């Protein structure tokens, strides 16, 4: 399975010079939990709603402070056609929950650990259904006929 086959969403970005207040408003309006911080169009960091709580509100940082002062710096990304196993490896080795997807080195999406778990669980559930039928009806043709629809 490719990463692009998982559920993912379009990235929401904010400029590195924008204030924390604008980031909070953007998070709220877009209904997302994280923003990709860009500098001249190039990603330089990620900021999450939790970052705003723990690094701004809790530390009494003024909301007109630049967002790049509280963002997590550097962006670990994946090509959109990467394999899902590669995504899980990134989650594990970098201790992150969000990975931007890139095509031609442009960020085109954001996949979260939650998205990956839900998508994988759904795929496993489908697979379990197939195996359950094979266990219950090991011989081809054993499946019960579909009930007749009363007409």
């Amino acid at each position, binding site marked *: 399975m490719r990463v692009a086959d998982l559920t993912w969403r379009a990235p929401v970005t904010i400029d590195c010079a924008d204030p924390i207040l604008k980031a909070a408003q953007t998070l709220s309006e877009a209904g997302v939990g994280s923003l990709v911080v860009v500098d001249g169009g*190039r*990603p*330089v*960091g990620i900021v999450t709603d939790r970052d705003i709580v723990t*690094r701004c509100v809790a530390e009494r940082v003024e909301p007109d402070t630049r967002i*790049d002062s*509280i*963002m*997590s*710096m*550097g*962006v*670990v*990304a*994946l*090509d959109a056609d990467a394999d899902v196993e590669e995504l899980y*490896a*990134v989650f594990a*080795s*970098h201790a992150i929950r969000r990975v931007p997807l*890139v095509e031609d*080195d442009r960020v085109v999406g954001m996949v979260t650990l939650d998205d990956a778990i839900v998508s994988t669980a759904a795929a496993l559930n489908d697979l379990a259904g197939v195996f359950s039928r094979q266990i219950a009806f090991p011989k081809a043709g054993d499946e019960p006929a579909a009930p007749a629809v009363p007409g």
Partner: protein
Amino acid sequence: MKASVGDRVIVAGRHLGERRRTGRIVEVRGVDGAPPYRVEWDEDGRTTLYFPSYDCRVESPSEATSNESRAPS
């Protein structure tokens, strides 16, 4: 930021809980040495696509060797 294949990447980590990470650039995907880079991380040997930020610096292999020789033993 400009870099070449073989250069060392040092990511300082600025916030609480962020680790210092080091690695080696195995591919430069931007134009004229610009990011993004594919980096093989020293910690686990895995390779990822990386867009560096202000907490990242790049050293050529010779600079890295020089810095290591100056480090206190």
